[in-house]
């Protein structure tokens, strides 16, 4: 090798430069233990538990330039430049963030992109490398192929090469955790360390977000778990979590998401292998997965009209998503729907509990974005797209969104993304994580409405007067809790306090509903949606379980609405008119806003986007709380 004559000097300078960089950053501020916790949760903390950055194999391939640091800065309220060049700033910062990059091939596409082309022997990798450098179209093509091949268990060997990947993963994982630590400020902003586990046999979505309660010192002792391609059982993830907790004394939980594209596999009645689910298996599932992400950009998983024909609001976020699994490799058939939706899973949990004594699906609810842009945007007027290939533009709403397949899903079917509301006693990793463990959480489809939900037998006549929240905590249980029908002092039906306050800068509320699911003596599962309090009750009267619609103030031309209908707050104390003390049941709250414009209308307004016939223009955004479970015996 021939070197220019001056090389030794410049080399020396370069090394000196590097040597000066080895001092670690100074960490200051408060630790979790120094944060003063409230006696009970006084305020809801807003966050996104599911954000991807350029470290995610697909996000990078889609073009995302924003890494974890940009993502954290954005979530805290700083201005960043989005991949497409737009300046982006969240008008209201979030309280916490989980960056959940895919563990599978963590950083692999970036490595492929950055690799000297010379070393790419695999013809597929070489072609991908070239395509990605061609620009957005090429990237989109590569990503589609990547996801498709992953679903078919057919990725090039070099991408799934375990040793190379391990090295790459370790480097990215520990660098990432350092960045997260720099932005974690107990009391102000909580940055969690986490990742996404991306199990996807034949394209059936069994993904989970994995969240650690702990800091870098503990999480650096493990690598994010990658199930690889194919059929690795989910219990392997739980083994990984157990091993982590045992070795470090730390804590970790998993949050399944997009059950809607799992083709019935997310909430099965059977155990692994197809036999009846055992008590031991059910116990493990419930212990490791206390929460489910019920709503996000890739559709809403609360309920489906096929399963809940009497629920007139169950069609929210279903169009496009309910026709096939994630990659559209397999169509969804009606028999699969029951395993795809949260409400049905909560009911199935009661059935499995009746048989085994353990409820595997006793989970709380959150919403999140699953944004692949590094931007945790959840609102209709700031939707930055599922990934950087569909950041705001005239074309995105009507463009086909096919991941590796030609069947039809279209841009407009994306939701703008949801958020997680957490009733924690303070803003720190431990306080928020512990609230998640006790399921004191709710999902919203973006708006930040404040929703309280308590159950109990001993609420007084002043249950909604004065300092009622404190009293409700003392006399009952909050969302995520259990009511024991055999406890001392229990008489008659329990009461439920529900209070919903609109997003202070958002739309008024249409109604509050309580969704009840139960199992009868014959083992049959039932559900019913009760309208419990609504706006304009003087003019809107119940007929059976139906109310007249709230109305509609959306102006299509200006993508706006007026709060001249609906109510800023809806609150009541409710008793189940059909309460049967012998029946196991769950109750959760659904809050509906008045109709508001969807993100597609903002695209029309800003970019003159042309919409396809059938594009949904407005929706009633909503919140879902974690259930409260009633048990006849403790």
């Amino acid at each position, binding site marked *: 090798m021939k070197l220019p004559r001056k090389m030794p000097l410049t080399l020396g*300078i370069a090394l000196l430069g590097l040597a000066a960089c080895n001092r670690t950053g100074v960490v200051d501020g408060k630790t979790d233990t120094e944060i003063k916790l409230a006696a009970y949760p006084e305020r809801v903390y807003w966050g996104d538990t599911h954000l991807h950055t350029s470290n995610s194999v697909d996000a990078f391939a889609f073009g995302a330039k924003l890494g974890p640091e940009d993502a954290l800065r954005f979530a805290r309220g700083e201005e960043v430049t989005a991949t497409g060049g737009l300046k982006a700033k969240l008008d209201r910062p979030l309280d916490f963030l989980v960056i959940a990059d895919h563990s599978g091939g963590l950083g692999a596409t970036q490595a492929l992109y950055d690799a000297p082309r010379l070393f790419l022997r695999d013809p597929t990798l070489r072609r991908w490398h070239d395509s990605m450098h061609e620009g957005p179209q090429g990237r989109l093509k590569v990503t589609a192929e990547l996801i498709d091949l992953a679903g078919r268990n057919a990725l090039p060997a070099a991408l799934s090469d375990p040793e*190379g990947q391990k090295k790459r993963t370790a480097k990215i994982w520990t660098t990432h955790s350092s960045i997260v630590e720099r932005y974690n400020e107990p009391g102000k902003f909580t940055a969690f360390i986490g990742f996404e586990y991306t199990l996807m046999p034949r394209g059936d979505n069994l993904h989970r977000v994995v969240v650690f309660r702990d800091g870098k010192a503990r999480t650096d002792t493990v690598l994010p778990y990658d199930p690889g391609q194919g059929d690795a059982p989910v219990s392997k993830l739980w083994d990984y979590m157990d091993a982590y907790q045992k070795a470090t004394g730390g804590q970790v939980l998993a949050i399944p998401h997009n059950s809607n594209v799992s083709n019935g596999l997310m909430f099965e009645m059977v155990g692994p292998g197809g036999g009846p689910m055992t008590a031991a298996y059910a116990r493990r599932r419930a212990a490791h997965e206390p929460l489910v992400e019920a709503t996000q950009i890739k559709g809403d998983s609360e309920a489906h009209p096929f399963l809940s024909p009497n629920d007139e609001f169950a069609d929210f976020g279903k169009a496009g998503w309910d026709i096939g699994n994630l990659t559209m490799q397999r169509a969804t058939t009606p028999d699969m729907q029951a395993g795809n939706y949260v409400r049905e899973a909560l009911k199935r949990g009661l059935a499995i509990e009746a048989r085994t004594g353990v409820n595997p699906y006793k989970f709380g609810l959150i919403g999140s974005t699953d944004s692949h842009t590094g931007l945790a945007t959840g609102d209709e007027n700031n939707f930055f797209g599922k990934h950087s290939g569909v950041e705001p533009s005239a074309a995105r709403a009507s463009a086909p969104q096919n991941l590796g397949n030609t069947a039809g899903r279209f841009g407009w079917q994306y939701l703008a993304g949801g958020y997680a509301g957490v009733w924690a006693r303070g803003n720190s990793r431990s306080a928020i994580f512990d609230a998640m463990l006790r399921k004191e959480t709710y999902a919203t489809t973006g708006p930040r409405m404040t929703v309280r939900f308590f159950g109990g037998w001993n609420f007084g006549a002043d249950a909604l007067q004065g300092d009622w929240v404190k009293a409700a905590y003392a006399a009952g249980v909050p969302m995520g809790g259990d009511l024991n029908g055999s406890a001392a002092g229990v008489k008659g039906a329990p009461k439920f306090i529900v209070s919903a306050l*609109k997003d202070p800068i958002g739309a008024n509320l249409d109604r509050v509903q309580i969704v009840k699911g139960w199992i009868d003596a014959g083992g049959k599962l039932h559900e019913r949606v009760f309208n419990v309090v609504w706006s304009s009750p003087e003019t809107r009267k119940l007929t059976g379980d139906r109310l007249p619609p709230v109305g509609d103030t959306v102006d299509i031309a200006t993508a706006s609405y007026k709060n001249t209908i609906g109510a800023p707050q809806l609150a009541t104390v409710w008793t189940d008119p059909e309460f049967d003390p012998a029946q196991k049941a769950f109750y959760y709250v659904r809050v509906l806003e008045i109709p508001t414009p969807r993100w597609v209308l903002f695209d029309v307004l800003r970019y003159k986007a042309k919409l396809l016939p059938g594009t949904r223009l407005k929706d009633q955004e909503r919140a879902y709380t974690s259930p409260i479970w009633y048990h006849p015996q403790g």
Partner: protein
Amino acid sequence: MTLVERLKRFTREPLVHFLAAGALIFAVWGGGGDAADRSITVSEVQVRGLTEQWEQQWHRQPTPAEVDGLIRDRIKDEVYYREAVRLGLDKDDIIMRRRMRSKMEFLVAAQAENEIPSDAALQAWLDAHRRNYATDPILSFDQIYVAGDRHRAQSVLAQLNRGADPAALASLLSVPPTVDDAPAAEIDRQFGDGFAKAIAALPPGRWTGPVASGFGQHLVRLRKLTPGAVQPLSAVRKAVENDWREANRIGRENAAYQALLDGYTIRIAKP
């Protein structure tokens, strides 16, 4: 200034990093790849590199014949590359251009991200951006929510000023009637943007308003207002360092580009 200090200072110049890193890359990957140079040397290091890549791909050692094949291919790459450059084929190739640009940007970014600021640099940053790190104003106040319009709120205000019980006049809304020592951001978060600022401007000690929140009209009694205070570095170091780092990264990227740009004369003819 000693020679070492000079050298250290010199090494902080973005352009120097840029050139040094570029030279380093050239040294490792260039392998004497000057297009004008008609000799090709494949070094031991390069052969080892080729062999390792091969092993990663195939999970076994290449046979000697396969090693020779790799070397032949490496030479072919080099010959074609040099001839292509000689013919100017790199000039109009969009992939090539984008790739070269991203390599250059990568070099700058990698250098800038490693920088650790001194205390003095952080203090200077804080001094220049004090307002970004000041604490929020802290407010204590009482409020009642009055359903209906401003007109109705004004008539309720008159009753309050005649000594009526605020609790009896309040409409139901789950926001605290009494707020003690809350930072402005926290108040806006609960009541909607701009609410804290509107209250801070009110005359203290008596019921006044109405003030509009995201929910409707409120009557407010401001009890205490503590203006925001500038914070010492020790209290905000983490945030300052993060911001300094980000600004420094952007600044150095821009400076590195500017340094290169300065070497060019640019003429633009707009149609």
